[in-house]
C-alpha cells in the first residue's frame, strides 16, 4: 500500500486518497454504463439506464423485483447482450458476447442461484474452464494450493478437495467468491448473495466484502435487504420498472428514502392490530419427524402463529410433515377435534390445509404453464364435472383472484415465468386461497419479493386471519413476524425453545431463543 513504489495499481490506494487527489479523475470510474436498453419481445426490461461504478467502492443496486437489476447484471456479466447504449469498462467500450469474455476482462458475477457443480470438488468448481495442466495432465497440487490461498483470503480453512455438496450454503457462497477473486476480477457483481445465509454467515460475508474493497476491488451488490445495503454500500443506485431512478451517497440515504425511490411511494412495515381468535382448529402433540422432535402447539381460528428460527431449525420440515409432504415418525395431529395423518399433500388439501412452499422456483411454480393454470391447479378437480374442466368456473376464479390480489399481468395465458417474483408469489397465494382452506401454512411468503408486493402480502395475511383462517407463518424476517403474529414459536435445531406472546416480542428475545439459549425471564 505504499505509494511511489513504481506503477502501483490505483485500486491499492485507499480510496479516500484517490478521491482527494483526483489525479485519476477520468479513470476513477471502473465501469460506466450509459443509455443501456434491453428488450425481450415487446417487454422493455431496461430503458436507457445509467450506472457508474467507482474504483474500489461497494455500490448497491436496489429495486423491486422486475426493476431490471438482474437484466443489467446479466448484460455486465456477458450472459445477455444489450440492444442499445454503451458500457465502458476500465475506459474501454465493451460488449461481451459470453460470460467468459467478461471474466477475461476482469468482471466476475456471482449469480443469485449459485451455479455450482455439486458432485465436483472445490478446486474443480473454482477452476472449471481454466484448469491448469501440464501436457494435458491436471496439476491438482498447484491448484489445491492456490484454492486454499484464495479461501484463506476469505478467512476460511477447508479442504479444497471437499465436494461442494458436502458444504453448507454459506461455504458454497464463499467458494463462489473465491472463484471470482481467483480470476483476478476487478469488479465483482453479487446478486442477492445472502438470501439464504444466516445472520452470522452474513456477517462473515460483509467482512469479506470489506477486505475485497480494501484490496481495491469494486463490488456491485444487488439486494433487497435495505438495512444491509445502508451498512456496507458507499453508494446506492435505484432502478424502478427498468428505469434509472437515482444514485445516493450513503450519507444522504435512509431506508425511507430508498423505499420511496424504489416504489415511488412511502411504505412502512406498520404493526397490524391483532385480530380476534376463536376455537383451536389444529392441535399438535409430541410430533417427531426427520428434522424435528417433540413438537407441541395449538393454532386457533383467526390466529397468526409465527415460527422463527435460524436456517436448519426444522421449521420447513415441520410444515411439510403437517402437510403430508414428508413422513411423520410419531405424535398426534388433531384437526377440528379429529386425529388426522396425511399420506400425501392431496389428502391434506382435501382436509382443509394449504401450504405455500418455501422455494417458489422449485416447489411452487410451473414455469412454462400459463398463469391461469398455475393459479387454478389445486382447485381444478373441484371445478370439473366428470373430470372435464368447467371453463366458465375457471375463468371466474382466475379473474376474481387476479383482481383481488392485484396481480399485474398482460394476459393470463402467458407463462407464469413472465411475471416478476412478487406477482408470481401472489399467483401461488391465490392458488391456495382458491381451495378455501381452514389452515394456511406460509413458508417464507415474502422471500425474494419486492417491497410493494410484500406490503400487499402482509395485508392479505392480516385479512385472511380476520376472516377466521388459522395461519402458520414461517419467516426469517423478525420485523414481519412481530408486525403480524399473535404468538411466535421459536425453534432451534428441531425443538421448540420458546413461545412468545405479543407483549413479549422483541428481536433480542427471539434471537436468544433461536440461538438455543433458554429464556431468562427477568
Amino acid at each position, binding site marked *: 500500500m505504499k505509494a511511489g513504489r513504481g506503477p502501483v495499481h490505483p485500486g491499492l490506494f485507499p480510496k479516500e486518497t484517490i478521491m482527494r487527489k483526483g489525479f485519476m479523475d477520468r479513470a476513477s470510474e471502473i465501469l460506466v454504463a450509459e443509455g443501456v436498453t434491453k428488450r425481450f419481445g415487446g417487454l422493455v426490461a431496461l430503458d436507457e439506464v445509467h450506472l457508474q461504478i467507482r474504483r474500489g467502492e461497494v455500490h448497491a443496486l436496489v429495486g423491486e423485483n422486475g426493476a431490471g437489476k438482474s437484466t443489467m447484471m446479466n448484460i455486465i456479466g456477458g450472459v445477455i447482450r444489450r440492444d442499445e447504449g454503451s458500457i465502458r469498462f476500465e475506459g474501454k467500450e465493451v460488449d461481451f458476447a459470453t460470460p467468459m469474455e467478461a471474466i477475461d476482462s476482469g468482471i466476475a458475477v456471482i449469480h443469485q442461484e449459485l451455479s455450482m457443480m455439486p458432485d465436483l470438488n472445490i478446486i474443480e468448481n473454482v477452476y472449471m474452464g481454466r484448469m491448469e495442466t501440464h501436457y494435458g495432465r491436471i496439476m491438482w497440487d498447484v491448484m489445491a494450493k492456490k484454492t486454499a490461498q484464495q479461501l484463506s483470503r476469505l478467512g476460511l480453512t477447508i479442504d479444497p478437495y471437499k465436494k461442494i455438496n458436502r458444504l453448507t450454503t454459506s461455504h458454497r457462497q464463499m467458494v463462489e467468491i473465491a472463484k471470482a477473486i481467483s480470476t483476478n476480477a476487478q469488479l465483482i457483481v453479487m446478486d442477492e448473495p445472502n438470501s439464504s445465509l444466516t445472520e452470522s454467515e452474513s456477517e462473515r460475508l460483509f467482512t469479506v466484502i470489506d477486505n475485497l474493497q480494501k484490496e481495491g476491488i469494486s463490488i456491485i451488490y444487488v439486494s433487497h435487504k435495505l438495512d444491509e445495503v445502508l451498512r456496507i454500500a458507499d453508494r446506492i443506485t435505484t432502478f424502478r420498472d427498468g428505469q434509472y431512478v437515482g444514485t445516493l451517497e450513503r450519507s444522504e440515504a435512509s431506508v425511507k428514502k430508498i423505499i420511496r425511490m424504489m416504489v415511488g411511494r412511502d411504505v412502512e412495515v406498520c404493526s397490524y392490530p391483532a385480530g380476534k381468535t376463536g376455537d383451536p382448529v389444529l392441535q399438535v402433540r409430541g410430533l417427531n419427524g426427520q428434522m424435528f422432535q417433540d413438537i407441541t402447539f395449538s393454532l386457533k381460528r383467526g390466529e397468526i402463529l409465527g415460527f422463527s428460527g435460524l436456517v436448519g431449525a426444522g421449521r420447513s420440515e415441520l410444515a411439510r410433515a403437517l402437510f403430508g*409432504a414428508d413422513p411423520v415418525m410419531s405424535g398426534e395431529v388433531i384437526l377440528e377435534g379429529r386425529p388426522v395423518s396425511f399420506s400425501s399433500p392431496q389428502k391434506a388439501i382435501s382436509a382443509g390445509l394449504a401450504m405455500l*412452499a418455501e422455494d417458489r422456483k422449485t416447489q411452487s411454480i*410451473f*414455469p412454462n404453464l400459463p398463469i391461469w*393454470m398455475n393459479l387454478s391447479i389445486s382447485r*381444478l378437480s373441484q371445478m370439473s364435472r366428470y*373430470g*372435464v374442466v368447467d371453463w366458465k368456473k375457471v375463468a371466474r376464479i382466475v379473474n376474481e383472484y387476479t383482481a383481488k390480489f392485484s396481480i399485474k399481468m398482460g394476459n393470463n395465458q402467458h407463462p407464469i415465468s413472465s411475471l416478476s417474483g412478487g406477482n408470481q408469489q401472489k399467483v401461488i397465494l391465490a*392458488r391456495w386461497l382458491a*381451495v378455501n382452506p381452514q389452515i394456511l401454512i406460509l413458508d417464507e411468503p415474502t422471500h425474494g419479493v419486492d417491497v410493494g408486493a410484500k406490503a400487499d402480502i402482509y395485508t392479505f395475511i392480516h385479512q385472511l386471519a380476520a376472516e377466521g383462517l388459522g395461519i402458520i407463518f414461517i419467516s426469517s424476517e423478525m420485523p414481519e413476524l412481530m408486525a403480524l403474529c399473535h404468538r411466535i414459536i421459536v425453534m432451534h435445531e428441531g425443538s421448540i425453545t420458546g413461545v412468545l406472546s405479543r407483549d413479549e416480542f422483541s428481536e433480542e428475545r427471539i434471537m436468544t431463543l433461536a440461538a438455543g439459549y433458554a429464556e431468562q425471564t427477568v
Partner: protein
Amino acid sequence: MDQTASGIESSWLRKQFTRIRSTQEFVVFLVLVLLFIIMSLASPYFLKTQNLFNLLRNMSTIGVVGIGITMVLITGGVDLSLGSIVAVTAMFTARMLWMGIPSLVAIPAGFLLGFLLGAVNGLVIAKVGVPPFITTLGMMSIARGLTYLFATGVKGAVASNIGVTNGFILAVGGGYLGVVPNSVIEMVLLVIIFQWFLNNTTLGRQVYALGSNREAARLSGVNIVKVEVFVYTLTGGLCALAGLMYAGLLSTAATNAGVGMEMDVIAAVVIGGASLSGGKGTIIGAVIGAAIMAIIKNAFVLLHLPTFVQTITLGLVVVLAVAADNLRKD
C-alpha cells in the same frame, strides 16, 4: 358503430392468428405444407388419391402410439417398450385365435395385456422410482421375449409369424370406408378425442403440471402416481390397438413387428414440439410430425432413392426440427 365492431373482430382474428403463429406446431405445419408442395411438383404420382391414403395409412400406427408417447414425454418420461408391446399384444391375440379361442375373448385379452404391461411400466416408474428409460428398456426386452414365447409351438419351433384371418382385425388394419382406410379414421378419431382430453380434463392438465414441475405438482395436490401410471397404461393400450392395425394390414402377427418403431414414434413426437424434459407438447403436433416423416419416406419410394439416404434424412430432420425450435426462441 359498425366500424368499431368489425375493428374488434379483426383484432380478435389477428390475435388468434398471432397465437397460432407463435406455437411450434405452426412452424412444423409450414414445413409439412412445404414438403407437400415440393413432392407434388417432384412426382406426378404423389397427389394421386391412392398414394395419399397409403401415406396416411402408413403413418396411422405411428400416430396412434404417438398419442400415448406425447403424454409420456409431457410428463418428462420416455417409453422405449412401445414397439415390443405392439408385437406382443398382436401375437397374444393371434395365438389365442389360432388356438380356437373366440375373438370376443381374444381381442379384449390383447388389449388387456397392452394395458397391463403399460401399467407395470407406470407402477415401477411412479411407485418404485426406477427411471423411465431403464424401466421401459427392460420392458422392451421382456415384451419381445414374450412375443417369441407366444409364437412358439406353432408348426414346430419358434414361428416367425402367425397368420390372422379374423374379419374384425383385418377390417381394423386393412379395411376401407369408401376410399378412406379404416386405420386413418381410427387415428383421426383418437387424435381428436385425446387432444380434447389433454386440454379439457383435470387429468389432462395434470399431465402438463407433472412434467413442468414434479415437486410443485405433488405439493399442489396432484396425485402424481395416478397421473404417471395413467399415461403409461394408456400408451400400452394404444400400442395394443396399433398391434391389431399392423396385424390386420399384413394379415399376420409377426415376431419382429414394431422393431425400431420407438425411434419413429419418439422422432415424430419431438418434431411436433414435445420436449424430452417434459411440460411441453401437443398431440396435433405429434401427428404433424408423423405426417412429415411419412411424406419423407413416401418421397424416397416415389423418387426411387436408396434406403440409406432415407434413413440419414430422417435422422437429420429430427435434429433439425429441435434445433430450429431452439434457434427460434433466441
